[in-house]
């Protein structure tokens, strides 16, 4: 499986948990929202780590470059983590207004980030890394 296919699919699966979490909080079901929040946080963090610790270094090594697109992606990961810390707080406090304001922001940040990865960066990684990329993915299954 290509990096593009695997990672895009992972984005979608995170999106689904994310929207369910928003809906649960909106309808006041905090037990379910908390549960979904934990599973979203876990999945997204795993996704980010896989990029930062495995895919990006492999790509940078092949490319002999740092400070290009991957550094922008890492920077946006940090921005996402900042928002996730705010959301975690809102979930703990059962604060629906704060939560939805933060999730709206995370949603836009995450989606424009994903679009850049899916449309530009992942296809580029597939070309540069070839089968080495698929080897990395096969260790995750």
């Amino acid at each position, binding site marked *: 499986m290509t990096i593009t296919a695997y990672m895009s699919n992972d984005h979608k699966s995170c*999106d*689904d948990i994310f*929207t369910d979490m*928003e*809906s649960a909080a*909106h309808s006041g079901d905090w037990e379910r929202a908390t549960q979904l929040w934990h599973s979203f946080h876990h999945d997204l963090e795993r996704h980010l780590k896989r990029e930062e610790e495995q895919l990006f270094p492999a790509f940078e090594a092949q*490319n002999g*470059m740092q400070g*290009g*697109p991957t550094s*922008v*992606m890492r*920077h*946006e990961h*940090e*921005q996402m983590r*900042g928002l996730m810390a*705010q959301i975690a707080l809102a979930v703990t406090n059962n604060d629906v*207004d*704060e939560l*939805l*304001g*933060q999730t*709206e*922001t995370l*949603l*836009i*940040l995450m*989606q*424009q980030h*994903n*679009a*850049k990865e899916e*449309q*530009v*960066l992942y*296809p*580029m990684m597939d070309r*540069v890394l070839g089968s080495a990329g698929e080897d990395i993915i096969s260790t995750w299954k």
Partner: protein
Amino acid sequence: MNYTALSLQQTPPISVPLRFMLSAPLFAILAAVLMLYTGPELFMSRWQPALLAITHLLTLGFLAMVMFGAMFQLLPVLMGSLLPRPVLLSSIIHGLLSLGIVLMAWGWIGVLPVLFNWASLVLGTSFAIFIGLMGFYLLRSLSTHITRYMMLMALLALLGTITLGLLMLLGLGGWTTTPVHHWIDLHLSWGLAGWVLLLVMGVSYQVIPMFQITSEYPQWHKRWIGISIFTLVLLLGLVPSITGQLLPLLLAALVLIYALTTMRLLKARRRKLPDVTLRFWWLAMISLLVLSVLMISPLPPSAYITMTILFIIGFAMSAANGMLYKIIPFLIWLHLNTRLQANGRWQGSVPNMRQVIAEHHGYRQFLLHLLSLLLLLLSSAGFTYLYYSAALGFLLSQLYLFWNIINAIRLYQRISGQNSE
């Protein structure tokens, strides 16, 4: 391929998109004031100078402003294209565009033909720089997303629209004498069905699945609908003799397919939260759906103005207005956040998107927009006694939009001022 040339961020300074987006409601406010000043005879004939002035205040003053701002923002972010000197270039393009719109509107209202010559010079320069710049960077972009090709087609249609527009302006200014009736129809179809429709479609292919979490538009749709509309619009220009019945019928069918597909996606969206942008998208698509039916219905020529209102205010302005409520709060959050991070500080004092523009303010403005659209449609369709309430409603809606944007910018200035201390 040179990967170091690719930048995935390169978001331009916030003043670049915001100067365009803040100007948009100002020109619409001017249009509304002009509606109130002119009175109900505005809708008596499509050739009235005041109506031409109002139409261009909306298409250039509102729509082109939002679209230019959005393209300055979206191109670097989504297409991986770096734009050089964004502040300088956007200032020139924005300044000339604003001046040109005012000159042109003034030419019609004040019956001062000489202004049309100045307007065509100023607008021509602004559009030439914009089209050249965007075209060059779209062609160089690495993106293979359909939005890139839709934007290229939209830009070509814009080039045709503007060329014809400038020639007609020079005609009004007394420089050229040409039979222009066929040109007016072409100017309209290239401008509305070419530039506006194709650009909104191209952007919606990106942002509806992204932000509303819907499925993607079907592959066949993305591949064929846009290019077919572009071809039809082109044919209208090259082979005027076949315009008869067939082309409008085909065009209506394509528009209908786009509207229905989008509505199907919106209905099955996975993000179920109410959202003001979503409401604007629904209104835009319902307007387009009704329009496609009207296009093939036997209607008197007087229905022409009603259909134009449906397209410009119902479809295009709704879509643009809705997008503003996503783009502006996000950009303000993004720039404040980046600024804090650059100072090595953790966030916390950065307002989230709903604190930048509260959801209920967007929603109330949506209701005013919807109400004024309905009143305008009715008043153009013969319910003349509704005219002043329609124009007033439109004025209030645009004032509210301006107020929402200016408050968001003030918040940005206040917080970025605090952080630089």
